[in-house]
């Protein structure tokens, strides 16, 4: 096992910013495994079954469907493609045994993505400054995910709670995105954990 280093380390300073009630809480959740799996056309159900066996997560079928627990997450972000995250390491090593080349592909993104969690009553409001997407609960239910872009920074976002979102961004853009997120959160007061 190697030590996990965060690209946010130089700028992530826990504490409160602003006076009064905190609108959002920002944090890095640093999963040990982040894996993208993709199914060839027609193999989607077989892949969903493998994900269920490997992670215990029952992925709902359908565009953007997903599920999140305290330690694991999975959601669809494109046709036949799913992002899986686990606080434990080893998912990328375990999956290729089940996902054969006839069925689909497994891509280990554990070192390629940084996951930022934004939660709180004003989380939807802050995200709406970045993305022209409806983040309301009926449009994006708990567990559901989506793929979008903020200028050149691709982001995959999962709603992991009623007022909680996990944003997967490229590691190399993570510090820049984190700073933008802090600036956008100043208006509503924020706490970094």
């Amino acid at each position: 096992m190697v030590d996990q280093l965060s690209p946010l380390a130089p700028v992530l300073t826990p504490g409160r910013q602003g006076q009064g009630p905190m609108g959002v809480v920002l944090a890095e959740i640093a999963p040990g495994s982040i894996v993208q799996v993709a199914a060839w056309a027609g193999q989607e159900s077989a892949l969903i079954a493998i994900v269920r066996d490997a992670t215990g997560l029952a992925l709902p079928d359908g565009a953007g469907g997903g599920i999140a627990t305290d330690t694991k997450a999975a959601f669809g972000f494109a046709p036949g493609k799913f992002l899986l995250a686990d606080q434990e390491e080893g998912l990328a090593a375990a999956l290729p045994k089940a996902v054969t080349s006839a069925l689909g592909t497994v891509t280990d993104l554990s070192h390629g993505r940084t996951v930022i969690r934004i939660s709180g009553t004003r989380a939807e409001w802050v995200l709406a400054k970045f993305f022209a997407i409806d983040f309301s609960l009926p449009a994006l239910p708990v567990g559901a995910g989506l793929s979008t872009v903020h200028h050149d920074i691709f982001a995959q976002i999962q709603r992991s709670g009623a007022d909680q979102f996990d944003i997967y961004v490229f590691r190399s853009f993570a510090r820049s995105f984190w700073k933008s997120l802090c600036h956008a959160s100043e208006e509503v007061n924020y706490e970094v954990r």
Partner: protein
Amino acid sequence: MIITCPYCGPRDSSEFVYQGEDGRTRPDPASTDQAAWNAYVYDRVNTAGEHEEIWQHSGGCRAHLRLVRNTLTHKISSVSMARHATVPRRRRKAETPA
């Protein structure tokens, strides 16, 4: 302009990349038929009205989409996954009998 991706739902057109007119048929790569290659590379129907075209949702699910967009009004009357395209393609100008 808002494009409703069949997977992602309604998204701003800035998330999409235009990939040209639908229905172009690439000649056999081994072909040396100059006229066929010239037609493939340069000839466009340039429709004023309902236009069949390919877009990629590059800032989202990255799927290729087949749209019918009115070039006069920008109204989009149909969006489908390009890989599921079943609508018969309109005959191209070069293929129209004289």
